């Protein structure tokens, strides 16, 4: 049976931007500009607009995020229940990988 976090990995080159977007929205609904700023603060990466909206479209297609009514020209998005589950599974997977990496560094 396929694991949930594998689904995020299925997004190919958009998997990392998508993960960053899910993490950003875990804090509450945000529009595109606010997401870019938040992601830059959290990860030090500045997502380009083409990458940002490529990832948003993919996340929306999978119903991991959903749009809210537009505020002026800006449309906020929020994390769905499915998106929370995918994010949690992905972070657990990353935590396991990080733990192994740290332990191997300590041994070396």
């Amino acid at each position, binding site marked *: 049976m396929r694991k949930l976090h594998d689904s995020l990995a299925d997004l190919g080159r958009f998997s990392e931007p998508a993960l960053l977007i899910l993490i950003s929205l875990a804090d509450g609904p945000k529009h*595109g500009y606010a997401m870019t700023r938040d992601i830059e603060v959290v990860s030090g990466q500045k997502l*380009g*607009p083409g990458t940002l909206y490529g990832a948003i479209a993919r996340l929306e297609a999978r119903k991991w995020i959903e749009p809210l009514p537009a505020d002026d020209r800006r449309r906020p998005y929020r994390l769905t229940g499915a998106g929370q589950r995918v994010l949690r599974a992905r972070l657990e997977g990353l935590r396991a990988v990080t733990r192994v990496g740290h332990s191997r560094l300590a041994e070396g």
Partner: protein
Amino acid sequence: MTAERLVRLYPPAWRDRYAEEFVAAVGSGPLHVQQIVDIVSGAIDAWLSSDVRRATVAAAGVRKGGRGMDSYSFVCSDSKLRYTQRDAWIGAGVLILVVVVFSALDIAARRSGLPATGDILKTLAFPGAVALSMPLWLLKGQPWKAQVVVIGVTLGLVFLARYVASLT
């Protein structure tokens, strides 16, 4: 170069859904080279990605129509279909092109005194063209392994049929 100009590179349904918020997120000022490259590659992705098409089609359905509904009505008619009318036209174009190429190779082989090779090319022309065009429309958006299996089995059966025919 501004975001308002570059957003025109995106498909109509994508623009209907995202253009306004996209421009608002980017701002209306001049863009850096990196941003321009990112937006252009995003536009190419939006034209090619079945994921992005599904997102924009779903949104168009919610929003009572507009250009997106017209452009992607082929998809909307059956949610299991992942290709658009444009994809079907591209698939048909590739199909015709491959048939023409196989036929030209068939003629070239016969003129070079290789009638057996010509026969094989002639047999393969249409089924081969159908198989090679499938990833562009019928199989678009399917996992690559599934595409390899379907195309491989199709071509394998054609080769098998050709081989059995050569025995009789």
